[in-house]
């Protein structure tokens, strides 16, 4: 019997009777990170990294949740569990499970690049590696993020010179804070959409961010001129956006790597910035675990598994309910 198996409710450890990132309500759930496709409502008890505790409470309401430190081990019916940094968003963890010398690691989502706000990814030795493969295609190779942040600040400064408001969009948990962390506040003031402001407030105790101001119905177009607004992508084309006055729209996502995707988004500027590992990141992460078996859970799973099989791993895909298209989560935000 495998240590972790895939059931209709999620990834299940029978020996410990716990689920990892379940998509249905269960008795005990170990949670990798706070994104809505991984941390779902309805379980009786949640165990996660302590940074995720306020995130889960913010998103799921009154839930019973216990926080753990990275690498802190705890046993459930003989199975030893621990959380390890995944570098995806603040609090994001890989979940390690060990029983009778056999080690499995479930990555949740991860990236090998540094983002300045998440604890950097650390490889964990294991026999079986359950990995995401959102960007598991060789066409995805990220540029140095410092270059992207420079481009964003240059875009903002150019808009400032034209007295145009810069509307910068990104996913509310992780991406927006990463953007905020690297904005240059000497260019102008930073305003936020409600969803962005709330999540940033949740993370402020852990991370030092530039000052932001929430946009309210009283905020006039005049004060926004030349300044920057952070918001979720769902505001694109909305009545809320129209109230901002003259804007230049910017969108930060790994999906913006393709020209076609950029055109479909129809934003003024697209920034290729992702919180997932790119092709090289995935391959280097897998090599660093020293694993023999790989299970790919979401993204370009089949192609990635086929490539791994041709290169010496025993790889297979497993259907899960984690969103392979970040775009889907984005529009639900």
């Amino acid at each position, binding site marked *: 019997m495998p240590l972790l198996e895939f059931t209709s409710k999620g990834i299940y450890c029978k020996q410990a009777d716990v689920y990892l990132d379940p998509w249905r309500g269960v008795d005990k759930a170990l949670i990798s990170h706070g994104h809505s496709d991984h941390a779902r409502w309805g379980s009786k008890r949640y165990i996660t990294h302590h940074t995720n505790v306020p995130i889960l409470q913010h998103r799921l309401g009154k839930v019973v949740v216990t926080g753990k430190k990275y690498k802190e081990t705890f046993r459930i019916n003989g199975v030893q569990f621990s959380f390890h940094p995944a570098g995806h968003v603040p609090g994001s963890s890989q979940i390690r499970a060990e029983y009778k010398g056999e080690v499995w690691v479930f990555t949740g989502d991860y990236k090998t690049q540094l983002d300045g706000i998440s604890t950097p990814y650390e490889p964990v030795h294991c026999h079986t590696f359950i990995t995401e493969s959102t960007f598991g295609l*060789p*066409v995805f190779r990220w540029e140095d993020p410092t270059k992207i942040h420079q481009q964003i600040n240059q875009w903002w400064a150019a808009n400032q010179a034209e007295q145009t408001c810069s509307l910068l969009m990104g996913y509310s948990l992780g991406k927006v804070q990463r953007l905020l962390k690297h904005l240059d506040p000497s260019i102008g003031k930073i305003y936020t959409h409600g969803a962005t402001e709330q999540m940033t407030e949740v993370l402020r105790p852990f991370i030092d961010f530039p000052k932001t101001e929430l946009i309210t119905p009283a905020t006039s177009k005049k004060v926004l001129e030349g300044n920057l607004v952070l918001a979720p992508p769902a505001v694109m084309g909305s009545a809320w956006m129209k109230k901002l006055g003259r804007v230049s729209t910017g969108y930060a996502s790994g999906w913006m*790597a393709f020209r*076609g995707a950029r055109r479909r988004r129809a934003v*003024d500027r697209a920034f290729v910035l992702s919180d997932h590992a790119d092709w090289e990141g995935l391959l280097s992460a897998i090599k660093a675990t020293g694993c023999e078996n790989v299970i790919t859970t979401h993204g370009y799973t089949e192609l990635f598994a086929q490539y791994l099989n041709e290169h010496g791993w025993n790889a297979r895909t497993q259907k899960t309910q984690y969103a392979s298209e970040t775009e889907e989560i984005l529009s639900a935000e």
Partner: protein
Amino acid sequence: MRRFAALIETLDGTNKTTKKVAALTQYFKEAPKVDALWAVALLSHRRPSRPVTTTLMRTWAAELTKLPEWLFEESYHIVGDLAETIALLVQKEGTASPPSLKDCIEEIIALKPKTEEEKKRYILHQWKTLSHLERFVFNKILTGGFRIGVSQKLMTRALSKAVRVDETILAHRLMGQWSPQTTTFDQLLLHPILKIKFLSPIPFFWHTL
């Protein structure tokens, strides 16, 4: 090549006509005239004929990137554009001085009668030395499918602003058969020789010439 690639990026990155016209105008003002004339030719559907088949390009790209051919094909299928797929997969940073647009296109034209081996050597060299964006533009010129949301009318409007010649006159001068290999920017657009007017298919334009 670098300036033209930057222009394509700007044109591609905006939906606003005014910004497109402004970027084109700036390009026509600042680029060397030989390059600007080739840009006019490319944007008015006068492209060099394709020196290699896309099948060959795909095989060479898979070889250069050391990817299995099936994975290259799957990537192409997902990206949906061969020029872009190759630009993304060949991960090279580019050299400090890429060839000028004129030189690059004339090299592509000169490629046509050459052997397959010579073509391969040239194209692989370009892939390895151009930056991502330049590689994309190079592939687009090579495959001949340049659709960047700029109509000939829009291009003419920008050109008119740059050279201060009336748009309708320019539109007329751009008509018919011409090639940057047999004419110059000044000859074609600024000081056309008079006999052109007798070749004109539209008599009511005569008085404006």
